[in-house]
């Protein structure tokens, strides 16, 4: 099959490459661009580990062909931090213990970035539905919700909530 030439921006940097039409965007990012922070966890678009942003919209990069991303702007986990430091969502996940093994984390954070973009002050229910396309097997989700609330507060310029664990007593 004819290979196709594609050019796209990933985290602000331009990449060109030749791909088979069947090459999935996630494989292009991981294997040709060698950004391995985006992960693969299933074959059926169920787990969300491969979530990235395409022109600002969260997408499951295992369900997009690399050829479809020609000319698009992509953000992966490697593009979240800036020279000033980590993104509020990254800070939120670390400070609130929003991850254990870290495998789902990149997808979870990129999904959360779009969620907060569209809904800067989401309720717990908004967050839970908003990340329903991302599976986490480790955290039980409590602290992921907390992490996203923390990032939301930070991005709104408000005081961030306490990150101390709360126990019933």
């Amino acid at each position, binding site marked *: 099959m004819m290979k*196709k030439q594609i050019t796209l921006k990933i985290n602000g940097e331009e990449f060109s490459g030749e791909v088979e039409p069947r090459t999935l965007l996630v494989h292009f990012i991981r294997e040709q661009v060698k950004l391995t922070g985006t992960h693969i966890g299933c074959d059926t678009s169920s787990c*969300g580990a491969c979530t990235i942003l395409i022109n600002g919209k969260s997408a499951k990069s295992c369900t997009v062909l690399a050829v479809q991303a020609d000319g698009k702007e992509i953000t992966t986990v490697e593009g979240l931090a800036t020279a000033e430091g980590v993104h509020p969502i990254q800070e939120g996940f670390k400070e609130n213990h929003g991850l254990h093994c870290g495998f789902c984390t990149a997808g979870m954070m990129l999904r959360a970035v779009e969620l907060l973009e569209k809904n800067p002050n989401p309720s717990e229910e908004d967050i839970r539905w908003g990340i329903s396309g991302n599976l986490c097997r480790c955290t039980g989700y409590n602290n992921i919700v907390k992490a996203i609330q923390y990032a939301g507060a930070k991005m709104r310029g408000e005081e961030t909530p306490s990150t101390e664990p709360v126990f019933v007593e």
Partner: protein
Amino acid sequence: MIPASFDYSAPTSLEEALKLLNDLGDEAKILAGGHSLIPMMKLRFAEPEHLVDLNNVPGLSEVSIDGSKLTIGAMAREVDVEDSDDVAKVFPIFKDAAKLIADPQVRNFGTLGGNLAHGDAANDQPAVMIALNAEIEITGLEGSRTVGIDEFFFGFYMTAIQDGEILTKISIPVPSGKSGNAYHKLERKVGDYATAGVAVHLELDDSGTCTHAGIGLTNVNPLPLRAERSQSALVGTKVDDAAIESAAQMASEDCNPSTDLRGSEDYKRRVVKSITKKMIKLALERAQS
């Protein structure tokens, strides 16, 4: 998992796309949002030789509503309709349905046209379109034709779209008087296909009498199903409890669910009845407010 090899074209006009489809014949498959097709290709349940990607064809993504008609371009994303407050004023059913379709990432890319053209009775939009009496515009090299939603679905993964044609637009009449609509499905977990789903659209006159009812059912029949007897049971009534009860009962009798991992035939009939009741009540409440 990786799809089998295929060729790929990304036409930049509708005409070019139609020509390609005509030249390629049944080797070609249309790529819209890709969120049904690509997973099937990865599992190698589908092995098309050529994909014709419609994503670069302009003019297919419009969502607009005026006093008479809601128009949805075939390539409009689920999220475009979900997020439209103008649409939600008349058709809150789209927010109901969208929330239950897969997940936010999938809705960012999945298209309404693709959801219908896939011809899968497990998808949610077919029942919604049945309830809303949608008309489907199908375009070929010879021009466009319009098919009523009741003539659109033919069989498992089969629709009125012929080889060489493209679903281009969905039109839904905007009711002039009081109306309300609602959708719900029972799912084993969020993002699942429906165990059973029900879409209801009601129109009322000033006295509160039902002048029109549309009821579509999801995943309880080989084809997306219109619950005709249930509709008739509501029209001409004040949509009182007795009418609701009998409409719901009829829906549960008229569907043809099969036993599978989501539940037995009997269970699904019970779910259809329960949700039909709840959705008629919600649609009524919305029509009255």
